[in-house]
């Protein structure tokens, strides 16, 4: 009896404490908007101005005036494309880095140098190469988000236990069978950690990509509303981006956990 009361209490606390955290931040925000940063919209004002975009989340009033979830959907589509591209390039690259010492020696320095380059630097290059903002955006997302996939896949491949490889050798598994039946499943948990981190970065990059290309989406909307002096919508976009990123990470985390159980 005591145990259940306590767990009930701790559940309640687990719910109330985060809400308290939100309240503190909103309080600070309100205080800031009333005192030293008068241009910053107050929480209440933000709520009022954002309401039309929330109650009709899929409305399309014009190219640059749409419901927040519609914008989010555009961004998600773009991220999905860029992210898929990143996985398609990053996974084989990771396998090659993990399997071949020569390949690793040749390409690892390049990976290490390209990895910290900001999306703001890749985008102009993408525009130069592709001449169109669409593919340039995808290029940027892929270039920024593939590295965790590359590195974790390589780590996963290197960590395949020698025992499993011995089994493959004794059974005379062909190279492709060894790859798909032994190495891939053994490396999968590592790879998925990479996929998860990559998705986080891809979502991070979307704002920069849309800002600079002016493509419709949650990042494009943010930049356009900044130019239109509707600062409330900047905050709406920030909160949306954060929530979506959080949900994506949770989904990937759940899949990752399932892979690790076995």
């Amino acid at each position: 009896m005591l145990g259940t009361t306590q767990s009930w209490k701790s559940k309640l606390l687990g719910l109330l404490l985060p809400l308290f955290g939100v309240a503190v931040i909103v309080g600070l925000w309100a205080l800031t908007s009333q005192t030293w940063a008068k241009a910053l919209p107050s929480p209440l004002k933000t709520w009022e101005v954002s309401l039309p975009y929330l109650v009709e989340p899929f409305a399309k009033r014009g190219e640059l005036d749409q419901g927040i979830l519609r914008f989010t959907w555009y961004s998600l589509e773009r991220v999905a494309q860029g992210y898929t591209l990143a996985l398609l390039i990053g996974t084989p690259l990771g396998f090659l880095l993990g399997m071949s010492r020569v390949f690793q020696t040749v390409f690892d320095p390049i990976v290490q140098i390209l990895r910290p380059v900001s999306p703001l630097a890749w985008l102009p290059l993408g525009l130069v190469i592709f001449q169109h903002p669409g593919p340039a955006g995808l290029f940027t997302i892929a270039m920024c988000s593939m590295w965790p996939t590359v590195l974790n896949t390589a780590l996963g491949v290197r960590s395949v236990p020698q025992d499993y490889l011995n089994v493959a050798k004794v059974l005379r598994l062909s190279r492709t069978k060894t790859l798909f039946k032994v190495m891939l499943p053994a490396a999968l948990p590592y790879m998925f950690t990479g996929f998860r981190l990559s998705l986080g970065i891809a979502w991070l990059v979307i704002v920069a990509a849309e800002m600079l290309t002016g493509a419709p989406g949650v990042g494009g909307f943010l930049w356009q509303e900044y130019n239109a002096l509707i600062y409330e919508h900047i905050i709406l976009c920030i909160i949306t981006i954060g929530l979506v990123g959080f949900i994506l990470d949770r989904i990937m985390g759940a899949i990752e956990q399932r892979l690790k159980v076995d």
Partner: protein
Amino acid sequence: MALLELREVEKSQGQTHVLARASLGIEKGEFVAIVGFSGAGKSTLISLLAGLTKPDAGEVLWQGKSVTAPGPERGVVFQNYSLLPWLTAFDNVYLAVDCVLSDLPKLEKVRRAERYLAMVGLSHAQDRKPAQLSGGMRQRVALARALAADPEVLLMDEPLSALDALTRASLQDEIERIGRVSGKTIVLVTNDVDEAILLADRIVPLSAGPSAIFGPSYDVEIPRPRDRRALNHDPKFRLLRSQITQFLLDSRQTRRSSTLPSSLPVGELVGAMS
């Protein structure tokens, strides 16, 4: 001509000289046990016989031909089971059947995998993953996997050393039965002299490493099926056990006195002998 043969094999691993001029012939249908201390190079020996590693000098011969790579005619049961954790017990066995006997029709392969799982008494657990099986069950699956691929010789690398005493005894009986019924050539590596005597036709002790060498062969002339309870009172068993134990202890003694000035306390020797 021996079925499987080590001829003057030398092997080092890193700085350690593991095997020195190791020669051993294994005849078809024979059950040979190689007994030695932990770290004497027993696993290296199995790797060499399996073709997973190459000798520095000398040769490993299969039916007179040099062994350069692993092959399905030499099945291996690894010390740590080496089951693929993402596959069920059935799929682990099926993978082996599918790879080695790829020409069989699918239904035949499925039946074969099921038959060998049944042989080790695991039909009820065939859909479980290795993580859901006990150590003894895992080693049974590994045994079924090796046998289902129909090897001509079964190489076992301390297959029972990680198991508790009771499981170990029941698997020993299992291996004895499989060896007797299937008539397969078996090489068992173990650190347990009693286990070797219970199972093998012939025992070859491996001296303490580094630079381990084979001792003289001991034929086990105890009729099968062997009863582990009766064995303890069998004078042949007791003589064999004391001879082999003596050889192993002497080899360690020599090793120690050549490397360390202090010698083994006499009490330890006597205790191990009795």
